[in-house]
Structure formats: C-alpha cells, structure tokens
C-alpha cells in the first residue's frame, strides 16, 4: 500500500526532491532560484487544486457511505421486525397446538376421572361438573399465553447462543 501511495504521487515527490536538491546546491544563481520558484509556484497551484478535488471526492464518498450505512440500518430493523413477527406467529401456532391437546386431555380426564367422583359425592349435581369444565376452558387462554412466552424465551435463548457462536466460533 505504501508503494502505491508513493507511486500515486510520483511526480509530486520528484518535484520535492528537485527543490531539495536546488536548496542544497552551493553555487545556484538567483536566476536559477527564480526560474525554479516560478515552476514551484505552478506545481504548488496544481497540487492545491488536486488536494481540493481529492478532499471533495473523499467527503462525497464518505457521505455516500454514511447514506448507504443508514439505509442498511433501516433495512436491518425492518428485517428484524419481520423475523420477530414470523417467529411470534410460528411460536403462536405451536402454543395453540399444545393448548388444544392439553385442553382435550383435560376435558377427557375430567369426563373419565373427575366426573364419576363428583357425581358420586354430590349426587349427580351437573353444575359442579359444568363448573369444572368452565374453569378448564377459562384457564386455556392464560395457559396459551404462558406457553407462548415460554417458547419465545427458548427461541431467543437459542438465537443468542447462535449469535455468540458466530461472534466466537470457538464456542461451537
């Protein structure tokens, strides 16, 4: 890279070397100095123009990079939101399935195990059996939320672990 920079400013470096050579010359005449100074002024002017141009180009490049970075950041946030929504939907469906099976199992258990006991001890009071079924039904929604939260925590935990592995492959 250093070589490239040296070559990139090859002519400018040569002019500097010529100036230094003239300065170290003991027998240089006034006219020699004057002619060289004139040339040096011209080259300095060119170099100044060049510096202005390169600085402007460099600033514009930085602005373009900043804009691109900001656009990437916005897209990243949008992407993360979409991923979060998809994960939530997937986890929600999973939680619904679990609760459906749990609900069915509870109703079947209530019917087979609890109902005969209740009937025996309360003398066929249908309201108690119905109340138990209602309690099970009302419990299903909070249970679904709990299962969903629990599954989401698991997903986030595994995501964090994979991010850590990506950051430090030695953990894999």
């Amino acid at each position, binding site marked *: 890279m250093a070589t*490239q920079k040296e070559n*990139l400013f090859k002519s400018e470096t040569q002019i500097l070397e010529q100036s230094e050579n003239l300065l170290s010359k003991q027998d240089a005449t006034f006219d020699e100095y004057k002619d060289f100074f004139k040339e040096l002024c011209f080259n300095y002017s060119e170099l100044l*123009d*060049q510096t202005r*141009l390169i600085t*402007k*180009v460099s600033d*514009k490049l930085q602005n373009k990079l900043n804009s691109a970075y900001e656009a990437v950041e916005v897209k990243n946030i949008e992407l993360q939101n979409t991923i979060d929504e998809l994960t939530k939907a997937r986890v929600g469906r999973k939680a619904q399935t679990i609760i459906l099976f749990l609900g069915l199992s509870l109703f079947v258990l209530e019917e087979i195990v609890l109902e005969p006991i209740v009937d025996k001890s309360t003398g066929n009071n249908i309201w108690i059996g119905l109340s138990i079924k209602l309690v099970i039904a009302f419990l299903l929604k909070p249970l679904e939320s709990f299962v969903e939260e629990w599954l989401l925590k698991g997903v986030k935990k595994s995501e964090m672990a994979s991010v850590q592995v990506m950051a430090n492959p030695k953990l894999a």
Partner: protein
Amino acid sequence: MESLVLQPTAHTPSVSLNSTTGVCEFKGRSTPENSVEYYDPIYKWIDAYVLNSNSKTVVNVQFEYFNTSSSKCILDVLKKFVKLHNAGKEVKINWFYEAEDDDMKEAGEDYSDILKIPFEIQSID
C-alpha cells in the same frame, strides 16, 4: 498504434482508447485495489498517443463511482489530454453522469475547473 481496450470488472471501468478515431472512453466503477497499477497502461498509452495523435480527440467519461486514489489517477489521465490541447490539438472532454447523480455532476464540475479545456458535462437518463 494499437487501441487499448480493458474490459470492465466489479471494481474497474471499461476503457476503450482508439488511436484511429481519437475517441477515448472510460465507463463504470473505478475502485481498484491498486489504482496506480490499473491506470499505468492507460498513462503509457496516452503518452504514446500524444506523440502521434489525431487532429481531434474526444474523451468520453462516464463514471458511476470512483474511490479517492482513482480520483487522482483520473485527474492525471485528463491532464495528459490537457497537454495535447496545449500542444494545439483539438481536445474535448465529455463528462456524462446519470440524471440523479449530483455527486458525479459536481465531480465533473470540479475536474472542469481544474483542467480549463473544452469540457462538457451532460446528464444521461
């Protein structure tokens, strides 16, 4: 004198320098890893062309993007055409930029200010 044609890559522009027609074209992106190495054959071709040039030379430049070191190399390339102009030959530089690319338009204006030769900045759709 043979023409110089360089095919474009992801980091280098397409270059077509035709000594017969006197039309020199640069088009695309210029972000080579080593700008000096990339532009060196172009410098050499122009130096040789200046010695035996057409009466009229047209330089068409249409960059999408260039990095800082390329901006210096492009300036050095265009300065070689200024030498040709100063030697009494007809030289015209056409700087094309995409309609919405204000940065490229401004870059063209900056080059035009420095070079002080016939320099036309044109927008393309």
